Structures are given as structure tokens and as C-alpha cells.
């Protein structure tokens, strides 16, 4: 911050004038007048001291204000961000478990449904043959035993499948839980953002006096961006109008066919 001392040419003149008149009074042997000049000089000095003190106080005040934000940010970085990271990891775990739970249901049920379909089709054909009077007594006896077995199997398999469907239904509860966690993390991110905006505002005021030099993108920022480009951005967020991003498989296909694919 610029000190007003440098611009105090007027003050130096006042000192010089006072010194000259002090010397004059001393040479003339006028002790009383000399004393008066010294009093003026002291007063001059005190005024400057108070001004200095005022500026120091203002700096201190701003530093304390900034420190308050830093304090909250320190809290956020040391506690809440690691906490949020943990929560988000938990979201990954939960969604993974739910997906596996559902997939297990599908893997367990699909063959049973398939079995019913195939057996049903085969017995249906036999039944039609019986209706056309193409089966003899022994063949009909076999068919009726198979039909008994099949009806029993329909009951068992369909009961099992509906239990499994219930399990798949229940596995979807992760959405509620992860949704709540993610909402909390969003709230934290919003707080960090507003704190950062305030910090930038404060340091922006400080920088103004110092020639307002915007630092170029730091090496670590550049590295982070390069890494992001290598890794990719992850799923596109729905509802964000990003011209850069395709919004459907059709657009992917159009783009690729325009490239000769």
C-alpha cells in the first residue's frame, strides 16, 4: 500500500521553514521564540504519527477480516473437503452395490424365464398333437406327466422370479440415499465458491494498488488441464447447453459419418 510520506513535500517544506526560523531565533538569542518553533515541530511530527497509525490500523483490520475467511477456508480444506470426498466415494460404493444387486437378480431370473418359455413351447406342440389325436395312450401318459411337472415348475419359477423382481426393486433405494449425500456436497461446493469469490475480491483490492498484474496460468493449473484433457471430462451434465458436447447417439453417428465413417 502506498504510504503518503512520499507525497509529503509540503511537510518537508514545513520542516525546512521551521528549522530556518529556529536557527534564526537561536542566533538572535530569542529563547521563547525558539521554544515556540520546537513546539510547532513536535505538533507536525505528531500529526504524521497519527496518520501512520491510522493506516496501520486499517491494514490490520483488513488483515483480520481476510484471516476470518481464511479460517473458514482452512476449516473447509482440512475437514469438509476430505469429508465430502469420503461421501462421494461412498456414493460410488453404494451405486456399485445396487447395480450388482440388480444384475445378480437378472442373471438368476433370466435363465428360469427362458426355461419356462422353451418348455412351454415344446409342451404346447405336444398338446396340439394330442388335440389332433396323433398321440397314442403311452405318449399321452408321458405328456400328462410332463404337464404335471411343468405346472409345478411354472409355480416355483414364477414365484422365485417375482421374489427376485422385488429384490431388484429394493436395490433401487440407493438413489434416494446417494441423492441426499450429493446434495450435501453440492451445498459445500457452493459455500467454497462464495468464500473464494470473497477472497478474490479482497486480494483484488490489494492488487489494484500494486499495478494489478494478473498472474499467468500457473504451471500446476496447466498440468491439471492437460491431465483433464487426457482423462476426459466424464458424463456430460444434462441441462447444460454445451455446443461442444453431443446430446445423443444420433449426433455421434452424424459426426462420424461426416468424417467418412
Amino acid at each position, binding site marked *: 500500500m502506498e504510504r503518503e510520506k512520499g507525497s509529503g513535500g509540503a511537510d518537508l517544506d514545513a520542516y525546512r521553514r521551521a528549522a530556518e526560523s529556529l536557527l534564526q531565533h537561536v542566533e538572535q538569542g530569542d529563547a521563547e521564540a525558539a521554544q515556540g518553533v520546537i513546539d510547532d515541530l513536535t505538533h507536525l511530527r505528531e500529526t504524521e504519527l497519527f496518520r501512520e497509525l491510522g493506516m496501520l490500523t486499517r491494514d490490520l483490520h483488513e488483515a483480520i477480516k481476510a484471516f476470518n475467511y481464511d479460517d473458514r477456508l482452512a476449516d473447509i480444506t482440512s475437514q469438509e473437503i476430505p469429508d465430502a470426498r469420503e461421501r462421494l466415494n461412498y456414493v460410488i460404493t453404494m451405486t456399485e452395490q445396487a447395480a450388482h444387486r440388480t444384475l445378480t437378480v437378472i442373471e438368476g431370473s433370466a435363465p428360469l424365464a427362458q426355461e419356462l418359455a422353451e418348455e412351454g413351447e415344446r409342451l404346447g406342440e405336444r398338446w396340439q398333437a394330442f388335440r389332433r389325436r396323433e398321440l397314442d395312450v403311452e405318449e399321452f401318459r408321458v405328456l400328462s406327466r410332463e404337464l404335471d411337472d411343468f405346472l409345478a415348475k411354472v409355480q416355483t419359477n414364477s414365484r422365485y422370479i417375482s421374489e427376485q423382481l422385488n429384490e431388484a426393486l429394493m436395490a433401487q433405494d440407493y438413489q434416494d440415499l446417494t441423492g441426499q449425500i450429493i446434495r450435501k456436497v453440492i451445498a459445500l461446493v457452493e459455500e467454497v465458491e462464495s468464500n473464494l469469490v470473497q477472497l478474490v475480491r479482497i486480494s483484488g483490492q490489494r492488487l489494484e494498488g500494486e499495478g494489478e498484474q494478473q498472474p499467468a496460468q500457473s504451471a500446476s493449473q496447466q498440468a491439471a488441464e492437460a491431465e483433464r484433457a487426457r482423462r476426459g471430462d466424464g458424463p456430460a451434465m444434462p441441462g447444460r447447453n454445451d455446443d*461442444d458436447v453431443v446430446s445423443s*447417439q444420433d449426433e455421434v453417428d452424424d*459426426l462420424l459419418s461426416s468424417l467418412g465413417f
Partner: protein
Amino acid sequence: MAADKNMKILVVDDFSTMRRIIKNLLRELGYNNVVEADDGNTALPILQKGGIQFLITDWNMPGMTGLELLKHVRADPNLKDLPTLMVTAEAKREQIMEAAQAGVNGYIVKPFTAATLREKIDKIFERVQAGGS
């Protein structure tokens, strides 16, 4: 002509759930010969060992990404013609073009459907067979 149902397929994705979904979809399409890897670094040795006839890979993975894996594949004389399908959430136009330039044979954005997967696989093998004749 459709693809050979017995061909050996390598599915590369860091999420085991996504590998499982793709594997189940493939099974439904009649492809039962599927092996898995969780990123490019684990996929590459499997590919180099030989026998893989079709590669399905994600892009965004820890370690080696799908795009880097694709570049390795295209640079390897034994693997350069391996049909490769990218199945990824990366949806930027420049990324799709980057994958195309690296020599990908098909590109599916997540979330996707079984029908899309079948369509892309069939299309890739139609072209491979047309090109090979």
C-alpha cells in the same frame, strides 16, 4: 453378414458394474466368449497374448485410458487391425473426432441401449468383412 458369435471379446472398463452390463448385453446378443480388464494397462498384455477378436473399451480410466490403449493397439503390427468399439460417457465433439483419428471403428455414448450395441457391432463387422474381401 453378422459377426462370429464365438469370437473372443475383451471388455475394458474401470467400473465392474459397466463390464457386467456389457457382458450381459453381449450374452443376450449371443456372444458368450468375453474376457475383462479394468484399464489399458491390464488390457494390453491380454491383447498382446493374442486371440482377442474384438475390443470394447471405455475412455476415462485410471492408469492407461481407452484412447491411449487404442493408440497402442493401432501401433502394434499384430493388433493394428483389431476392430475396436469405444463405449464411453465422453461426449465432446473433439473427443469423438480424436477417437476417430486414432482409428476407432465405432463410438457409443453412455448411457446406451442393447439395440445400439448390437447395431454398432453388426456395422463394424459388416465393414471389416467388406474391407477384408
